[in-house]
């Protein structure tokens, strides 16, 4: 079978695509890639469809064996990547031959990293998506021994492509709108929240990330009334019973009773989720109109990623040992038009 065999893998790795939007009224959050920009990077490098499925890693990687020839790409947080022990650059497309071993080590920047294959992983589809939703028990959970299938009918030798590193990894200030329950907090509490620096906590997953506050009173809501649960929105920052802020992410509970103070704008949420634990961040309130402008910009960046894709030209002297392995003609010549005649 065509596939990528998992030799070892971090417990929190998942299969992710664009998720399952539209089921929130039934209690199912959409899930999908934590970093949609990074998912789109991989699709641009491979010419994939926007909702093709990739492997998502959250701070740790794994080892994989190509059971057949395959064309892949990496995106998102930069992990250490080796093929048969040789280091390879990140955010590029590349080929593996049957029997090659791929190893992904911990990320040097960011948290969420993606491994894509041409055509997307062909794992089980439930409710219109291949996304692993851990809490709902949907989709394939990647485990050692599993062979992740991919399409055998796509070319596995192509011109390697690369994308520039996005600037978003160095961001530490994230824009917010007031959340529906902001008025349950005093003006003083809201101001303090926006003036405050937060440390990204260790307790984080696809549901949410805890923010730690040092040497400051907790952010309690004013009212003694316990409000009944209502629906949560992606990016809501809820204040738990002990006053700890938690940023709600793609796999959040669909409803909650904790008051929500602000909502991180969609254009900034993935960049926030990519901040490593222990780092300091802050929030900045913007207007609703500005949030729409930022969303338009963010979508345009995603839609024009394919224009940023560049061919990888490598020094033939450095890869002469590889040419004997009949890798890819195009790697050596950098000729996009006609790169199959050595095959």
């Amino acid at each position, binding site marked *: 079978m065509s596939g990528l065999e998992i030799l070892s893998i971090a417990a929190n790795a998942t299969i992710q695509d664009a998720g399952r939007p539209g089921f929130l009224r039934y209690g199912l959050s959409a899930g999908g890639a934590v970093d949609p920009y990074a998912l789109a990077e991989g699709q641009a490098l491979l010419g994939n469809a926007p909702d093709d499925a990739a492997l998502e890693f959250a701070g740790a990687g794994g080892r994989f064996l190509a059971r057949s020839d395959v064309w892949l790409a990496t995106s998102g947080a930069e992990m250490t990547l080796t093929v048969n022990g040789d280091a390879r650059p990140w955010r590029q497309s590349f080929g593996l031959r049957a029997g090659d071993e791929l190893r992904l080590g911990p990320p040097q920047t960011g948290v969420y990293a993606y491994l894509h294959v041409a055509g997307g992983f062909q794992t089980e589809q439930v409710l219109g998506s291949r996304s692993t939703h851990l809490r*709902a028990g949907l989709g394939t959970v990647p485990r050692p021994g599993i062979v992740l299938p991919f399409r055998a009918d796509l070319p596995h030798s192509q011109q390697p492509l690369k994308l520039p590193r996005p600037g978003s990894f160095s961001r530490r200030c994230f824009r917010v709108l007031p959340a529906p329950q902001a008025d349950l907090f005093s003006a003083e509490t809201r101001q303090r929240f926006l003036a405050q620096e937060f440390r990204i906590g260790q307790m984080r997953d696809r549901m949410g990330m805890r923010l730690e506050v040092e040497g400051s009173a907790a952010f309690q809501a004013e009212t003694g009334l316990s409000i009944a*649960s*209502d629906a949560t929105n992606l990016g809501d920052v809820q204040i738990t019973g002990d006053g700890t802020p938690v940023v709600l992410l793609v796999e959040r509970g669909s409803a909650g009773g904790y008051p929500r103070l602000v909502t991180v704008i969609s254009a900034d949420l993935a960049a926030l989720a990519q901040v490593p634990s222990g780092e300091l961040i802050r929030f900045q309130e913007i207007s609703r109109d500005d949030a*729409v402008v930022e969303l338009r910009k963010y979508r345009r960046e995603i839609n024009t990623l394919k224009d940023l894709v560049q061919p990888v030209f490598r020094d033939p002297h450095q890869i002469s040992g590889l040419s004997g392995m009949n890798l890819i003609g195009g790697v050596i010549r950098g000729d996009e038009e006609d790169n199959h005649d050595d095959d």
Partner: protein
Amino acid sequence: MGLLVVFGQIYDPAINAAALAFDRALRADLPDGVIETVPTFRSVLVRFDPLEISCPRLEGHLQELLARQDWLQAEPDDAAQHWVLPCVYGGARGPDLGKVADLMGRREDQVVAAHAAVELRVAMLGFSPGLAYLGQLPEAWNLARRSTLTPEVPAGSVLVAVRQTVLPATPIPTGWHAIGQTPFRAFVPAHRRPFLLAPGDRLRFEPVAEPCYAAFDQADFLRKSGG
């Protein structure tokens, strides 16, 4: 982006009926650019794409709909589904039944009869996929949640506290009292209708013995229930 239409702060059947009726009316004539609506105990979240419909325009649409009637006087949905779900009360399937009986000062069989006598409404689905919050039980059921959390109760558990019944469709952690379990599963991912319960549905539990639980066939049950 989202706009939240709020009918009250607490769970109250009239507030909930208002939210559900507003949601039905909104969905009957959904403006382009609205991604989904999420009715809850006390509100409706309207998620939309601000590049397809501007926030002021959607807000205008919602205000106009709000002004159309007194939603707090809204009647429950006539077309709502009506479920009678078999339930094994007590024993291993409802380990907290004895404690609930003690808290209510009644015998276990009285508690079971009282719970099964009430016609409940699905007030909202949420927290986990397909989990139904069912309201509302009489004042005698105004029980505090337990002080400790059970790490996991199985799908179909019948949980009570604060005059409500919770019916999870997947295993969940809970601080509510487990008094029984139904073999009915409200979330079947492979089914053509993966979510069987809808907000506003009427629902009653029917006490059955253990052999009925084992013999329960959901496909057969759905055929008979018209599902």
